[in-house]
């Protein structure tokens, strides 16, 4: 952008505006992290005194949080397994074979990502309600997989495209059989992509709200639904602590993806470079 470089004043103005916008993005998160340690958990900032009470309250007797957390973890784990199975097979079909109606299959995969989630959730509700499966963790996991599997497919498509198919030919020319090639060449090269796909599937399911809300019952409530309920119906100050834990969890997962991606790419860019970060945010980007 040398040609468009503005004066020093212009640069300062741009930086100032950018900083304000960045604060706009970051502050809601920072505020939760800080407030979760505040003695007044509701709508007061900055805190007057510090406490760990909200975290302790999470695991107090009668707390609904442990059940919600374990349900969400169970559902997310199932959803991750389903998504990986669908993702590996679909990416193989779309990248490494001759597939009739390839673009139709691809459009089908993109569908759940662009259709409003409330519509998908409503459809799933109409499917599972007559089957008396509302509140079943399996039904919720199956529903989440509709959203998570397309993400896994896109990530794995990008991964497979990044692996030169002729490396497999090269291994075959030296005498490696199909299984050996899959085990020694393709799998190690695809591993970073598979880890990323697993993490993204897990997060997608773990944070999912619409489908969970439609498919949950009184006894089976996922963590996001419980958070929503606490914010609307039953005032529960522990929600701040839960939110803080969810933020920490997201940052951890994101860091993990960044690390895997960075190691997988041969540590070429800096770990914190714009390109690496964009790649983390958009891991299937090259596939679309």
């Amino acid at each position, binding site marked *: 952008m040398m040609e468009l470089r503005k004066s020093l004043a212009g640069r300062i103005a741009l930086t100032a505006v950018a900083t304000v916008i960045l604060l706009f993005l970051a502050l809601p998160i920072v505020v939760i992290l800080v407030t979760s340690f505040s003695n007044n958990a509701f709508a007061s900032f900055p805190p007057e005194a510090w406490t760990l009470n909200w975290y302790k309250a999470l695991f107090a007797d009668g707390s609904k949080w442990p059940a919600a957390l374990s349900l969400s973890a169970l559902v997310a784990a199932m959803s991750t397994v389903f998504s990986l199975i669908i993702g590996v097979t679909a990416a193989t079909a779309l990248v490494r074979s001759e597939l009739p109606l390839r673009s139709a299959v691809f459009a089908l995969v993109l569908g759940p990502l662009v259709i409003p989630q409330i519509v998908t959730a409503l459809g799933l509700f109409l499917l599972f309600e007559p089957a008396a499966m509302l509140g079943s963790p399996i039904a919720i996991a199956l529903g989440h997989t509709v959203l998570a599997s397309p993400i896994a497919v896109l990530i794995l498509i990008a991964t497979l495209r990044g692996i*030169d198919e*002729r*490396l497999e*030919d*090269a*291994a*075959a*020319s*030296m*005498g*490696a*059989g199909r299984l*050996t090639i899959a085990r*020694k*060449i393709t799998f*190690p*090269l695809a591993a970073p992509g598979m880890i990323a796909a697993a993490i993204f599937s897990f997060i997608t399911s773990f944070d999912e709200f619409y489908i969970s809300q439609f498919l949950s019952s009184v006894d089976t409530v996922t963590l996001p639904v419980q958070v929503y309920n606490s914010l609307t119906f039953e005032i529960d100050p522990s929600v701040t602590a839960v939110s803080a834990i969810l933020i920490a969890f997201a940052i951890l997962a994101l860091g993990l993806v960044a690390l895997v991606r960075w190691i997988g790419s*041969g540590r070429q860019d800096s770990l914190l470079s714009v390109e690496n970060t964009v790649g983390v945010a958009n891991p299937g980007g090259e596939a679309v």
Partner: protein
Amino acid sequence: MAEFGIAAPSVKVAGNKPATATGKALSVVALRKTYGDVVAVDEASMEIAAGEFVTFLGSSGSGKTTTLMMIAGFCEPDSGTITVGGRDVTRLAPQKRNLGFVFQQYLLFPHMTVQENVAFPLTLRGVPKDEIRRRVGETLEIAGLSGFGGRKPRELSGGQQQRVALCRALVYRPPVILMDEPLGALDKKLRDQLQVEIKTIQQELGLTVIYVTHDQEEALVMSDRIAVMRNGLIEQFDTPRELFERPKTPFVADFLGAANFLPGRIDKHDGEHTLVRLTQSGTLLKARRHDLPSGTEVKVAVQPGRLRACATDDGFCTGTVEMATYVGTLVRAGVRIDGGDGPLVRLEVPAGRGPVAGERVGITADADDVNLFPTDEKAG
């Protein structure tokens, strides 16, 4: 593991000829491959002896790469057979053929070190660890890569990567190593250097190599024999000298020697020579003996380097030098032959004795350097 033909781990990497070094290493009979209506390879047949360096030479679309891919097993022939060391491999998967392959794009495994890459084929064959270490070390040493074993492929230059790829293909001593334009991605200087290195290693180890290239010079420098391919057909399969001096078709004369072509008609046969009357100048030219009957319309093919400028009354024809370009040790001259509007005849003569533009010259050639092709054959 015996089917891989390396059951004898005592084979030394340097000095010894491989166990299969006697007789035919590979034969191809009536190999044919079509893509829809396009005939990619048309009834190609050849026999390659152990220890031979054979090149498939041709421009893109000539069928040279398709032939190589069929030998490797990456592409299946419609008909024909491929035999390696007496074993019919035509319908075998690539991994069961026990061949070596060096790709243009190197295709080193990016997640393995140089050492692991070269060891990979040996690991597949269940070679003991000590033996693997020893053989990989020896092979890397031959290629001048000692000390690079711990590096990852991306930390190497293109030339080094291709040396590793070469090591990986020869470390398990396959009876035949196939190379698909292995130097195509390198710059000219490195290419020249690696041509010599590959040739040296091939001769020292007695390797049988099939090499694909579109570069005539590369083919001439490296090969024991060259198969010149065109439109899916093998035009001629011969030593570089034969191809250069005794081309069987106008295409080969043009492709390898960039020959001049002059139309003419066979006048008569005179002992060891055939006399041709050139259409343009009406003068007589002495060629080596040819079996075509008198009166046959022919194309006379002589390479620029085999023509000489001489006094106007000494040559087989006369003309005027229209251009003369000094190119280092040579002068390239273009001569307009008297008696018509044919293309310029190109000469390459040593600098210092070269003609100058505007000069009147005679042109002469040894009868032995003159090739004749009947005109009704396919055009060159």
